[in-house]
C-alpha cells in the first residue's frame, strides 16, 4: 500500500513514550504531504486500553500486536513481529520516534525487510523528484538534505522535539490486529534487570541556575574558574556527556538524553557545542547563555545570548562582573 504511512508507537507499561506523539504528528504531516493515510502500529502485551486511546488520535487505523512475547522489548521480537507485516502491507513510510529503543532495532528491521533506512530526521520538504529530508550531521554542526532513491518502504525516525506533540489530531480509528505471525516471534535477549545508573545523588531538575561545561573545558584541573563562577552565581554545575566520560565530573552531573533533564531560569553553556544528545536535556531552560570559541557551534542557535570566546579567558571576567553586580 504505497498510499499508507505507518507510525510505530513506543510504549512502556501501557503508557506512550512522550516522543510517540511527536511521531504521530510527523506521520500525519507526511501522510498529508504524500496523499496517504496515517495508521498507527502498537506492540506490547495487554495494551488493549492503550490501543483505544490511540484510536482517538487523527489516524485512519490502529494495528495492534498484543502478545506476551512483546511484554518486554527485545529487537528479536520486535523485528520478528514487524517485518512480515511491513513486507505484507508495504507501506510507503514507517515513522518511528528516534528513541534509544528505536535505534536499537530499526536498522535491523530495514535490513530484514529490504526497506530504506532514514534515521533522525528533523523535517522534510518537497523537492524536485520527491521529498528532501533534513537531518543533522557532524555533531549537528551542519544540516544535510537527503533524498531516498529507488522504490519500496522507507523506515524513518524523527528527532526529539522536531515535530509538535500537540498535533496528533483527533478521530475514531478502527482498531485491528497487525497482520503478522506472532506464534513465530521469539525474543533474542534474556532480560535480567533494569537499574538506575548513578542513583542521581545530585538532582539538577530543581536548580534555578546551572553552569554547564563541555569537553572544551579541557580537564579536571581546569574546573577551578568554573566552580568560582558557579559560586558567584549561586549555581549548580552540570556537564555534557564527554566531560562525564572523561571522569572530569561525576555521572550525576550529566545533562542530556542519557542524563538529567533540567529547566532552570538561567542556563550557562560553557564550551558546549550543542549536540542534540545534550540539548534535549536543557532546552526547557528559560534563558540560555552560550560561550564557545566556535562561531558555528549549534548551541548558538538555541541560546538567547552568545559570546564567541575562549571560556578560559571569558569565565574569570564573567565571575568578576557577576560579583561586582551582586555587590552593588
Amino acid at each position, binding site marked *: 500500500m504505497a498510499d499508507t504511512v505507518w507510525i510505530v508507537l513506543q510504549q512502556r507499561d501501557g503508557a506512550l513514550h512522550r516522543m510517540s506523539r511527536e511521531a504521530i504528528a510527523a506521520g500525519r504531516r507526511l501522510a498529508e504531504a504524500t496523499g496517504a493515510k496515517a495508521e498507527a502500529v502498537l506492540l506490547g502485551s495487554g495494551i488493549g486500553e492503550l490501543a483505544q486511546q490511540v484510536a482517538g488520535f487523527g489516524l485512519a487505523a490502529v494495528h495492534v500486536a498484543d502478545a506476551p512475547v512483546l511484554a518486554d522489548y527485545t*529487537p528479536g521480537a520486535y523485528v520478528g513481529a514487524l517485518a512480515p507485516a511491513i513486507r505484507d502491507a508495504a507501506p510507503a513510510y514507517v515513522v518511528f520516534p528516534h528513541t*534509544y*529503543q528505536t535505534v*536499537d532495532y*530499526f*536498522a*535491523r528491521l*530495514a*535490513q*530484514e525487510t529490504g526497506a*530504506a*533506512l532514514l*534515521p*533522525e530526521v528533523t523535517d522534510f520538504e518537497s*523537492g524536485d523528484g520527491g521529498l528532501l529530508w533534513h537531518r543533522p*550531521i*557532524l555533531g549537528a*554542526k*551542519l544540516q*544535510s*538534505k537527503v*533524498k*531516498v532513491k*529507488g522504490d519500496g518502504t522507507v523506515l524513518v525516525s524523527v528527532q526529539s522535539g522536531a515535530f509538535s506533540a500537540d498535533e496528533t489530531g483527533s478521530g475514531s480509528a478502527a482498531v485491528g490486529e497487525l497482520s503478522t505471525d506472532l506464534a513465530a516471534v521469539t525474543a*533474542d*535477549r*534474556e532480560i*535480567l*534487570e*533494569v*537499574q*538506575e*545508573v548513578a542513583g542521581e545523588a545530585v538532582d539538577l531538575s530543581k536548580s534555578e541556575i546551572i553552569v554547564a561545561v563541555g569537553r572544551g573545558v579541557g580537564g579536571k584541573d581546569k574546573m577551578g574558574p568554573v566552580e568560582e563562577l558557579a559560586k558567584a*552565581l549561586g549555581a549548580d554545575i552540570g556537564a555534557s556527556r564527554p566531560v562525564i566520560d572523561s571522569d572530569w565530573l561525576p555521572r550525576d552531573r550529566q545533562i542530556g*538524553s*542519557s*542524563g*538529567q533533564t533540567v529547566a532552570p*531560569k*538561567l542556563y550557562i553553556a560553557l564550551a558546549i557545542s550543542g549536540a542534540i544528545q545534550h540539548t534535549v536535556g536543557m532546552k526547557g531552560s*528559560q534563558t540560555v*547563555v552560550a560561550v564557545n570559541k566556535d562561531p*558555528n557551534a*549549534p548551541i*548558538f*542557535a538555541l*541560546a*538567547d*545570548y*552568545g*559570546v*564567541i570566546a575562549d571560556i578560559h*579567558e*571569558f569565565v574569570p*571576567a564573567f565571575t*568578576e*562582573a*557577576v560579583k*561586582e*553586580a551582586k555587590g552593588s
Partner: protein
Amino acid sequence: MRIAVCIKQVPDTEARLRVRGDARWIEEEDLPFKINESDEYALEEALTLAEATGGEVIVFSLGPERVKEALRKALALGAARAVHLSDAAFDGGDALATGKALATALAQEEIDLVLTGSQSDDVGYAGTGSVVAGHLGWPHAWLVMGVELEGDGASAKVIREMESGMNEIFRVELPAVLEIQAGINHPRYASLKGIMQAKKKPIEAKSAADLGLDASAVGAAGSRLEIVSVAFPESGEGAELIDAPPEEAAKLLVEKLQKEARVL
C-alpha cells in the same frame, strides 16, 4: 576468543569545517581525520576482552587510502592485524550498503564476537552494526555500556543504556554484534613499542570483487540514501551575540541578564 572490531575514520569535528564546492559534503582536503569516538571505546573493550581470554583482535575499516592511518593506530594499540575494505565502489554508502560490505568481509573470517561503535560522528546513521548482525544472523545490541562474558564465551551479560539515566541488563548468545557507547571504559594510549610493532603488522586490502560483491550493490550505488546538500544552519535566529573583549562582554552580559532577561 577472536574479536573483530569495525572502526570508521571520521573528520575531527573540532576542526574548522568548510562546505565543499558542490555543497554535497564538506571539503576534506587539509581536514584532520581520527578514529570515530565510540569506535575507540569499542576497540578498547575488544582489547581488554581479548587479553582476558587469551584471544586476538582483528580490526576492520571501510574507506579510502587515508583509513590506513586509523588501522595503523588500532594495530599500535594492540590489534593483531587489519582488514581494509578498499575500493572506490565502497564510497558513499549508507548504513545498509556499508553494513553489507563489512558483514561479507567478516564472514570470510572465524570470528566469535564483533564490536563496533554505536554511532559515527559524521553521518551518524547509528545502524551499521545492526545491519552487520542482520547479515550474519547474529543477535546484536546498541548503546552497550558493559560486556561480561559467560560460560567460556557462550553468552554475554550486556548492559545497555536507556533514556533518563537507566540501564537495562540482559543476556545474549554469542556470537553477537555489540555496538559500544562512548564512556564504557578508558581507552589506552599507544606505547612507543606498540607503534614500532604496528609497522610490521599486516593490513590486508579487500576490494568489492575480493568479497564477491557487485560494485552496484555497495557504496553510493547500493544505497537508498543520497545526500543532496549540506549547509551550516542559518544564523539570524538564535543568540544575540555580544561581540566585545572578555571584560567588556562580561559586563554587558551581566547587565542583559539583570535588566532584559531578569534572571539575575
